[in-house]
């Protein structure tokens, strides 16, 4: 049985397939807790977890906070707009001050790739990357893997299509690393302007025709069009994007009944995904949110459950 010996969770790139499976197996047991009448266990009683979010978030932050609370840990949440960051304090100083308050884990979201890693080096607390720029979003990747495994009973050999803004998507990167490690076949598709150069080196097939990309796919992971990053004009209009790369009933007319449609949220309804597909028979979007909680509980437990207390 593989052991978890890491202080931090920074990305899926550095994890071994066995470590990824350990998180998924642990999450399976944690999922049951959310079905209980009292959705709380004392595993992390007395531990403190800080969420340090420098970018907006609903799902990830709430999911982490709830995960910590269900394990009986205390949480403190700090956002850039209300913290001393606005007074010019550096990330490192903010983190060191949080650590001086004897916090066990810092969960960070930052617009810069590598911010979580820098923090992990600077502090002795555990650090969880909740999204760093366009780099990685490991817990989203893990919850996507968990959802696929739960629904399909396997990951190896599945054909997964990742559609949309690959260039800016940390979710896409974490998904690619995770899925590749567990043996899935990946096709990515999106406008050429939103395709990172040399992405094939990650072991994926690039297709620019949406219908070809989704043909015979077992899973379609639809990415959000990041409107906040579109000022540079990567495509002419949202309408045109929707026509070329939007997932709708017409695109899915030949889909098998076991197809899974995933989306990390928040959804731009009618842009990257039509409302009838987002709420339709193939959609597992809300299952992803439910599973996210179990996966984050598992990650917190694995990072904190081991004897790391200095008594």
């Amino acid at each position, binding site marked *: 049985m593989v052991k*978890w010996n890491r202080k931090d969770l920074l990305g899926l790139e550095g994890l071994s397939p066995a470590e990824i499976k350990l998180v998924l197996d*642990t999450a399976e047991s*944690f999922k049951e807790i959310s079905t209980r009448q009292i959705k709380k266990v*004392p595993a992390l009683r007395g531990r403190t977890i800080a969420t340090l979010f420098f970018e907006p978030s609903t799902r990830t932050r709430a999911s982490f906070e709830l995960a910590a609370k269900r394990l009986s840990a205390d949480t403190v949440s700090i956002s850039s707009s209300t913290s001393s960051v606005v007074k010019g304090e550096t990330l490192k100083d903010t983190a060191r001050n949080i650590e001086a308050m004897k916090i066990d884990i810092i969960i960070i979201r930052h617009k810069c790739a590598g911010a979580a890693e820098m923090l992990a080096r600077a502090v002795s607390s555990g650090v969880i990357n909740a999204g760093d720029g366009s780099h990685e979003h490991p817990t989203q990747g893990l919850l996507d893997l968990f959802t696929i495994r739960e629904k399909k009973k396997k990951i190896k050999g599945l054909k997964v299509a990742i559609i949309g803004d690959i260039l800016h998507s940390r979710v896409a990167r974490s998904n690619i690393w995770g899925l590749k490690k567990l043996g899935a076949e990946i096709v990515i598709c999106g406008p050429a302007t939103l395709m990172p150069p040399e992405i094939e080196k990650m072991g994926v097939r690039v297709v620019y025709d949406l219908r070809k990309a989704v043909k015979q796919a077992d899973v379609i992971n639809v990415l959000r069009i990041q409107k906040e990053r579109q000022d540079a004009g990567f495509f002419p209009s949202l309408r045109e994007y929707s026509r070329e790369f939007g997932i709708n009933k017409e695109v899915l007319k030949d889909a098998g009944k076991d197809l899974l449609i995933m989306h990390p949220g928040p959804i731009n309804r009618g842009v990257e995904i039509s409302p009838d597909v987002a709420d339709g028979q193939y959609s597992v979007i809300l299952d992803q949110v439910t599973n996210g909680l179990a996966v984050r509980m598992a990650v917190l437990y694995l990072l904190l459950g081991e004897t790391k207390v200095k008594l």
Partner: protein
Amino acid sequence: MKLKQKARIMNKAAVQRTITRIAHEILEKNKNTKDLCIIGIRKGGAVIARRLAGRMEEISRKPIPLGILDITLYRDDLTAIAEQPIVHKTEINFDITAKTVILVDDVLFTGRTIRCALDELIDFGRPSSIQLAILIDRGHRELPIRADYVGKNVPTAGSETIEVRLEESEGIDEVLVMEQEK
């Protein structure tokens, strides 16, 4: 620490006989099976609980709900042990409120496992009573806990351990006293 076998205190027939006796004792004490349920503590206790429930159903010809409790997340020594244990699922698919819960484990030692199990059970509901059934009581209690049904009392030295091997997991039914190799 290497262990060697000191004595074999139960074989297959003895384990079966003991479970049958405990089944009779539970039915005799509780009279009515309507509100009875059995919950085994993973992992040895779960196997014994399954057998006990089966035996009780055979005797009483009434179904007895069976659940499995994983106490990992309720352990009070999580920070003191070398590696975090693997978490398994708790599977209790019925409401334990107002029920008489027969909590089952293979070995009763310090009593800390039972304390964790009681904490977890109470989180699931409010049973009318909880009774404890144990295959082996080896003594050395650190908490004021005692079993209502005991398969065998085995006074042991602190350096000895009890190994309960069951067919479902180890392929053989036997109970061994193990001691440290000198």
